[in-house]
């Protein structure tokens, strides 16, 4: 691919420098909007801005190098990928790794995502996770999708720790028995759903 800088100067050193800076900008802009960006999308953006011209396939490695350079030179840029999946990029100035992991796992393995969230919440706070949270951003799963995944979890041994408890006003909470027992989870669910509002 031929790399063109905006003002037409195309000495080799500047060719490499300019796109690297632009890659950083592209990643940051996407992060500011709360989203990750894939390699493919970076290429699209560069193409849109006329900063590269077609033939992207042939120069894949070159683009790879440029991206690596951008990551090296900019401490806030992060590359993250789910196992066996393509990587995504984001800026830690605007997105945390926890949030990025949600977005990545959402594409890669949403069932595992639910389990991971439930397990983490049960371990570190500790608290059970309201079912409803998975219907909201950034998860945006439908009711049917969540039910399907929970049904799947119930069948698979590796998710045997994921259990449910219901508050006195009928809201379902998920927890992991790796960190919480049923009693504790139930008490905490009641506290979150009813207790805190009754003790304002």
């Amino acid at each position, binding site marked *: 691919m031929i790399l063109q800088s905006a003002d037409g100067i195309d000495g080799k050193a500047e060719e490499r420098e300019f796109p690297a800076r632009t890659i950083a900008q592209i990643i940051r802009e996407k992060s500011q909007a709360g989203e990750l960006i894939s390699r493919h999308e970076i290429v699209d953006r560069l193409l849109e801005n006329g900063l590269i011209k077609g033939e992207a396939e042939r120069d894949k490695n070159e683009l790879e190098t440029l991206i690596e350079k951008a990551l090296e030179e900019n401490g806030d840029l992060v590359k993250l990928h789910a196992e066996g999946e393509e990587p995504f990029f984001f800026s830690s100035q605007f997105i945390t790794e*926890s949030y990025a992991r949600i977005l990545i796992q959402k594409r890669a393995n949403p069932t595992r995502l639910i389990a991971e969230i439930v397990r983490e919440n049960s371990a570190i706070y500790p608290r059970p996770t309201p079912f409803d949270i998975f219907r*909201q951003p*950034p998860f945006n799963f439908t009711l049917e999708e969540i039910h399907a995944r929970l049904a799947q979890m119930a069948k698979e041994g590796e998710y045997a720790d994921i259990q449910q408890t219901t508050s006195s006003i009928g809201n379902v909470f998920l927890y992991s028995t790796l960190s919480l027992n049923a009693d504790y989870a139930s008490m*905490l669910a009641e506290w979150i759903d009813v207790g805190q509002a009754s003790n304002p």
Partner: protein
Amino acid sequence: MAGYGGWAGKVLRVDLSTGRIWTEDSVEKYKNVLGGTGLGYQVLWDEVPPGVKPFDPANKIIFGTGPLAGTGAPCNGRTAVTTLWPTCWPKPLVATGHMGGQFAGELKYAGYDGIVIEGRADRPVWLSIVNGKVEIKDARHLWGQGIRRTTVEIAQGLGPEAVVAAIGQAGENLVPMSVVMNSVSHSAGGVGAVLGSKNLKAIAVCGTGSVRIAGNKEEWEKLIKLHLSLLGANNQHVVPNSPQPWAEYFNAGSRWLASRGRKWGAASPSIDTGACDPHDLSRIAYRTNNAAFFNGEITWQYTVRGNGCTSCPIRCHTVIKVPSVAMKYGIKEVGQNTCVGLVFGRSFFKSFPDGPRGLTGIEACMVGMHLADDLGIWCNYGQMQRDFLKLYYSGTIKNKLGENEFKSYSWDKYEKGDPAFLFELLRRIAAKEGELGTVLGLGTGYMLEKWSLPEAEWQKDHDLLYWKMGHPKHHANEDAGQCGVILNTQYNRDAQNHSHCNFVRSGLPIEVQKRLAAEIWGSLETVDAIGSYTPMNIYKAKMAKWASLRKELHDSLSLCNWMGPWVASPLKERGYRGDDSMESMLYSLATGDKKSREELDGVAERIFLLHRALTIRDMGTKEMKAQHDTIPEWIFHDSSGKPVYTKGTIHMDREDIQLAMKMYYQEMGWDQATGAPTANTYKKAGLAKVAEDLGKRGLLP
């Protein structure tokens, strides 16, 4: 005035019996107790002897602000209203209500740090404060009117910028469960009837003066920005309610509700609250939506905007617009309030036809606010509503009321969860009409007495949340184990202390909380995860002492104890650390009186000790441990019989709590056996005269 900034310089004194109006020098006389509750306790100690009752002309009611009120320090719009408390049972003692809104700032701009009102006018009056011009005016045309009409009529004469604190019919009728309110929705609970007993309908303030900042203005600006940068959402929750791009953590119980897709739906046009990155200080006001927090997700479509006190960016009040109530109940479709004030109406009902998070619940809130905030009725932190539920469903109301009176209520509406029922009930409470109306207005203690109901029954019940002396608990063991229990023993009404729970509800993982706690109180063992309590230790006692002191400090400086202290912050780069010296830094720079964190806490201790001394003196006993610092039975039981220190129970162990009180008294320098402060402790806090007086009364250990 020794050239200090912050203070306006004068405390306004009004004797309604004689009509005399005079002022005192706030700095000269009250600097050592700052203002707010400090001012209140000092005046009561110096001028109101034991034996005076709340409705006596000799009782005084003190509206106190602090040196930070009216400045740009975040969250300073608070007025502490201190007096002998009508619902304190069996014997009235000192307590404080807190009023937000515009009153504190306006009073400062008018040139006053506080108002002390004593005596009784011979006819209804209102107090007009227009900068230096203070007049007692005839209120006979306002008497019998609600808070809203009173405010509008006074504003017609003083101008739209007048801030009016008024009582409603409840206060006029000497209903103990009554409030004084300003700025639409900001009430000080429990004091309405004291004003009513003095025939004082309202206090209106117009202030065009200034509050001077002693320090360099650039430094002040930097300090304010630092404070703003550490703020979370309401109650200093520093973790958002759902995963946000900028956040490592989330907490479904957090009041930080802002999120893409959650809109102020009734704004014209609607406004998306968005992902409120904590570094963006221009979006602090979008973080909190208490109407949605309490009423559920559907509330967003009714949300117009946030509202609240002068200077506060948090906006913990929510303005909601609910068109259906205009047609159904003939009331204004716009209402606003926060927390218990917001849910006043819905809290009476066991259930609603469309469930706990439906529209009817919201309508009940609207009807409740419409009535209670005009009639000026107090809920005692929801205790009135909890009592009502128990009294009705246990059949007590039916037993105690005569047949005619019982029939005069539409109980079918009540059971169905029809908000229209509130029109029947609340008006009668304000008017002291009928047995039920009268009894509910007395406060729980006097209600138990009047209906010969055993207090022990209230103290065993897990749902009533009753603590002692006619009032409920307020953030006790369910929030903070032993620390919470200790704090709830200390006051003469519900604790009104949020220092501890703002921290433990911050939303941070328990390991982070422990780390922050260790930095301030000395050990990772200071805090436990909720419902996973460990035995008492000295660090928990230190935290309880800190919480006690900081509550008084905030109430005396004018900082909102529902927002501070600032132990935690939402900033990952600070390890989620806040700044525990925020109060002392603000105080020092605003006033020019440089005090370190420890020094200012020393002043707070003096103020807290005054409260203790007043309580001891007016109870006429030093046996505080046995007679005052009592703990209800329910905290020692778990309804499913789980043992203490197991995960999933919040109940406490008797001996452990004994130890907790012992350690607390030790930290405070109080006598172990009685719980009374020692002469030495009083002296160290600059209260030698207090010690002397108590000594003469035989009330020193």
